[in-house]
């Protein structure tokens, strides 16, 4: 009885531990899994444009709105903010600095839009956005709220890492050193995207919920009252009075869409529909209510829900259509989703990418190898070389993955030989590492021979002493080397590097 209770308790503890670990892992994946910064770059470009336009429009009536004795006198606004932590540099500057400051803000917003010195200009742009908005609180509307929200998150994430002058400078700088700029992934990009996504969910949830407080949204008249508001209207929609079911229907759909957005947007199948409905709604607000700035900035925020792969492909097509040489990889170098299809196991193929590190280093690759690899590989669209690692044991896979990740070596880790062959034939691989633990030696020899037939990649075989007699066939395969286990991870890395580039000293440059 006592034993049964003890067993129950221990199994309960195991379950609890697994549950907590699962939650922690999910949290980590949700917030910190490195993400392609492309969408942040596009959002920055568009939001920066809106910020610049906003400031340009303020130029037309700057003194009336921001003057010390303008439509919102400085003293009156300051009185509103007594003992409140409100930031606006306009609260501390006088009329004499109005125009010089405004011109500087315009310049900074232009630089932010184009992605120049983005780490600095993104933070400054956020401060500019909130400074203008808080100085004229009575003239604010939804556009200012969303612009402030986007600028905040764009200053957190690496919004200048893509579609920016910064990225062009980086490419030029690496090119001068003979290096290739590779698509990178950032944990901070994931954080920024998640914050935008969750903020949008919050906005729609409460916008929908607040509408439920009003009887006119239940009777359906609310939408009619919006479109019959002459001060908003830019197009006569009074013809809807003869088809009243239409505004009623739109009112009901709007509420349902807003309230359920927070849930349905996370469903991959429903996401396009939800976003399409949102775009239609916001473009309708722009076209019929004249609030194009608000409608557009909301639609721009939707890009946080978009698939960066798809956009890379679109950008590459666009550049090609414009007659240019596309530097945008149609498929990002490290995207596990592309390889995992067909393998069936979530952990089966992993793309190890740098997490906290900004630069993904490439393994040195001799020109001959590079040419041979490129010519041999079918469907190769990635611009970075990766190491393909075959390891059957999950713990060994995760050890190697973590080690390569920590040392900024891009890699694809697979659990069996067939997947390894698949990866080598699909992706731009610079070397293959095979951990023979739990593998049939004859199969390892065949696999190495297959790789050698396809490519001239260096192959590093990690084996224990007892297996080595069965791996003699490897002697006939070119560019294969065997490393005895146990070996340290550092030894593996240095050995791998010396195989990739024999001319280079085995100093840990890559690693």
């Amino acid at each position, binding site marked *: 009885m006592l034993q049964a209770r003890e067993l129950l308790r221990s199994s309960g503890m195991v379950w609890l531990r697994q549950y907590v670990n699962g939650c922690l892992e999910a949290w980590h994946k949700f917030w910190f899994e490195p993400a392609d910064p492309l969408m942040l770059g596009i959002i920055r470009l568009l939001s920066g444009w809106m910020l610049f336009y906003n400031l340009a*429009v303020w130029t037309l009536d700057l003194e009336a709105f921001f003057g010390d004795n303008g439509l919102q006198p400085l003293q009156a606004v300051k009185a509103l903010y007594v003992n409140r932590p409100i930031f606006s540099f306009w609260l501390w500057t006088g009329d004499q600095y109005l125009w010089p400051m405004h011109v500087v803000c315009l310049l900074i917003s232009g630089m932010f839009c184009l992605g120049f010195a983005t780490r600095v200009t993104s933070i400054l742009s956020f401060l500019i956005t909130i400074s203008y908005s808080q100085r004229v609180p009575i003239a*604010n509307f939804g556009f200012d709220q969303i612009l402030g929200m986007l600028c905040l998150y764009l200053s957190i994430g690496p919004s200048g890492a893509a579609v920016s002058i910064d990225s062009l400078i980086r490419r030029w700088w690496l090119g001068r050193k003979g290096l290739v700029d590779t698509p990178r992934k950032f944990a901070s990009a994931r954080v920024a995207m998640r914050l935008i996504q969750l903020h949008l969910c*919050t906005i729609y949830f409460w916008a929908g919920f607040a509408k439920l407080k009003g009887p*006119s949204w239940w009777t359906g008249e609310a939408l009619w009252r*919006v479109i*019959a508001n002459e001060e908003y209207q*830019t197009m006569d929609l009074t013809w809807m009075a003869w088809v009243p079911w239409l505004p009623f229907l739109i009112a009901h759909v709007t509420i349902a869409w807003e309230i359920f957005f927070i849930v349905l947007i996370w469903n991959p199948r429903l996401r396009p529909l939800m976003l399409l409905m949102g775009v239609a709604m916001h473009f309708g607000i722009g076209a019929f209510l004249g609030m194009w700035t608000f409608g557009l900035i909301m639609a721009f925020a939707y890009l946080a829900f978009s698939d960066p792969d798809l956009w890379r492909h679109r950008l590459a097509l666009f550049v090609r259509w414009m007659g240019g040489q596309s530097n945008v990889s149609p498929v990002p170098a490290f995207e596990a989703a592309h390889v995992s299809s067909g393998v069936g196991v979530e952990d089966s193929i992993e793309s190890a990418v740098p997490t906290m590190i900004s630069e993904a280093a490439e393994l040195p690759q001799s020109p001959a190898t590079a040419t041979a690899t490129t010519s041999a590989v079918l469907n190769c669209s990635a611009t970075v070389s990766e190491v393909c690692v075959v390891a059957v044991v999950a713990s060994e896979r995760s050890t190697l993955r973590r080690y390569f990740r920590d040392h900024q070596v891009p890699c694809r880790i697979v659990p069996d030989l067939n997947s390894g062959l698949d990866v080598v034939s699909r992706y731009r691989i610079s070397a293959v590492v095979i951990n023979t633990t739990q593998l049939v030696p004859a199969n390892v020899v065949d696999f190495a021979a297959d790789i050698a037939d396809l490519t001239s990649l260096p192959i590093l075989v990690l084996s224990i002493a007892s297996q080595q007699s069965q791996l003699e066939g490897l002697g006939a395969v070119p560019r294969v080397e065997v490393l005895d286990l146990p070996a340290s991870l550092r030894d593996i890395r240095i050995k791998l590097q010396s195989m990739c580039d024999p001319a280079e000293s085995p100093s840990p440059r890559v690693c």
Partner: protein
Amino acid sequence: MRDVWCPDMLKLLKKCGYPVVSLMLGFHVFAVFIAPAAMPPASPLLMDGYRLALPYNELLFLNHGYHYFAPDPGASTLISYSVPRAGDAPVVGRFPNLSIHPRLLYHRYFMLAENLWAFDDETQAEIQKAYARHFSALHDASSVTLNRISHEPSSILRIQAGGKLDDPETFEVETIGAFDFSTEASQQSSVAQSF
């Protein structure tokens, strides 16, 4: 160099930084979510949560209700002004008016008329005075009268019966007040002369 200090530093950062960043993210999401939740009517619990996040939300310009066109889209508000001229008809105008371009600037003026009534009486009085001063200066006058105009949207039945959106019956005018800046101007000029 990196090999020497980096592992320890990274370990330390990961150890301390990860939970701190996670907590910050959790608090941020809470702050963003609670701000609109506390729009009235709200429970004391929601209000307590709102007050907890208020300084953070105000600092980052996140203290918004997101109640777009809610709970009920109402009448729009305009402000009209009348500047008297000696021996001539007064100059009248109102904002927003469709002659204001681009549309974003029009909306700024629209919000000046719409949002003012959400502030406390003292602020309203001060801002109304600022509006009056602005329009009197614009027309080089020393006095101006401001009116608040509520423009009720026409109902479906009204439009079906041949009504228009700008029918005079849909407008309701309420005088805000007459503002005289002649004393202020003379005081300013006398101050200027004394220098």
